[in-house]
């Protein structure tokens, strides 16, 4: 846990880390009910003076799409979405994502909503950032029960996209596509390597000395709070109120 006296909230740390992962790209799309990735995308856009385009799929106001529900996927298929976010009921050490069920598919012991667009977007969006705030052995498993979308593919499978990182409430992993393994990049302030190991169901690489995730700069926090938060409040009013104490602008 971030100490109470910390000058930023956990959500702000995660959003700042994700904004750096986004990098300099043209178009970031964010799925429904993803306020932290949305914050990160809007932060990236603020820093980039309007670049990247940000599509917040939960909100017709914050997407430019006019060709129906297929346009997101067509756009990705055209190579025009650079960054997307995926979560999963289960994620395993090979980057496989499960959004379907636990146990035998025909007689599951738990059922999730379904794969959504993951079985496609994971293949065609160059930078997919896995995002799962609950970092536990229940969510980060040795092997998913059902592969909604595989972390890697055989050499002859055309694939321009895939995972680049996994961010949780405890740490940041990068993903090595060649070796199909996660690598621990940093542990968030207030968390420990032992805690990460104890709560992760899969093996991962780690550097000899694991850095602490850098805290957001004062300028980053200012942009998030003063510029991003009011925009965010249009789409995620409750989140903006809770994290940034900002109410939806009139």
């Amino acid at each position, binding site marked *: 846990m971030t100490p109470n006296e910390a000058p930023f909230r956990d959500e702000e740390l995660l959003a700042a880390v994700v904004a750096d992962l986004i990098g300099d790209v043209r178009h970031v799309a964010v799925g*429904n*009910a993803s306020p932290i990735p949305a914050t990160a995308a809007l932060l990236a856009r603020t820093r980039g003076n309007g670049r990247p385009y940000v599509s917040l799929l939960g909100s*017709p106001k914050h997407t430019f*799409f*006019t*060709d*129906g*529900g*297929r346009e*997101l*996927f*067509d756009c990705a*298929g055209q190579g025009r979405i650079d960054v997307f976010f995926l979560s999963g009921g289960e994620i395993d050490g090979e980057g496989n994502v499960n*959004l*379907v*069920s636990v146990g035998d*598919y*025909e*007689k*599951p*012991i*738990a*059922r*999730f*909503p*379904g*794969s*959504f*667009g*993951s*079985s*496609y*977007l*994971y*293949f*065609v969006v160059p930078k997919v950032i896995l995002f799962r705030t609950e970092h536990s052995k229940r969510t980060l498993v040795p092997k998913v029960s*059902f*592969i*909604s*979308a*595989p972390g890697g*593919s*055989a050499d*002859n*499978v*055309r694939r321009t996209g895939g995972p680049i990182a996994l961010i949780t409430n405890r740490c940041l992993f990068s993903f090595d596509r060649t070796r199909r393994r996660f690598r621990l990049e940093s542990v968030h302030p207030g968390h420990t390597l032992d805690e990460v190991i104890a709560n992760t169901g899969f093996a991962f690489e780690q550097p000899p000395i694991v850095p602490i995730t850098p805290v957001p700069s004062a300028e980053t926090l200012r942009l998030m709070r003063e510029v991003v938060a009011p925009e965010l409040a249009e789409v995620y009013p409750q989140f903006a109120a809770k994290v940034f104490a900002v109410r939806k602008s009139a």
Partner: protein
Amino acid sequence: MPVIARSLDDALAPIVDGCVLAIPRESTGVAMAATRALIRRGVKRLKLVALPTTSLQADLLVGAGCVESIETSAVSLGEFGPAPRFTAAILKGAIRMKDATCPALHAAFQASEKGVPFMPLRGLIGSDVLKHRADWKVMDNPFDENDPIVLLPAIKPDVTLFHAPMADRNGNVWIGRQRELVTMAHASERTVVTVENLYDGDLLADRTLAAGTLPGFYVEQVAVVERGGWPLPLPEHYAWDGEHLAEYARLATTEDGFKKYLDKYVYERQAA
């Protein structure tokens, strides 16, 4: 030639037991009043195809015993949690699930729209979604070397059902930028639409409105049902009824609670 139906029940006549019924995602315009009317009528063995996801509509129909199978890429109440009757039915093995992924459904509807037997799609290879779909095939792309690609058979629904802002007396329906509704109608044998209100004039005669209009040529039945999407949203018209959806999510966690919900909101409120 489509006409405005005398009643919602009349309009729903094409949706017969056992038919393949195409329904849109929650944010596009879901015919919820029509869904309640179907439950009251006791429709059975629906083969739902939700493009590409579904929420309360499928959960209600599943809970009420109207559904044989669902083909879609997700069933969920979104911010209000999992779809409880759907989840229960899957865990009991009471319905057949055809798990898909969003763009596969879009492509398979477009195949029917274009009168072709299949459409290719990237992705999917190596997923268990593909593994469990015996009706999908992998072929080598004949325009390249050693390039496997998935082929999806066309989806041809018997009926498409949705809710839209308005229609005119020729059955032209204004759908705005919800263009998958056009594809669904093109792909389906019949299309049944409920609308908030009638447009007094010809939607096709106004060049701005025409750009967002599904021609009546594709529409079999239109019924006027004010707030026919409630408690789900109608894009740019009204939002979710969050309080109601929270109540549903709470009640529907048990079979008894779900029965109470049906009694209160489906059977007793004939006009709702």
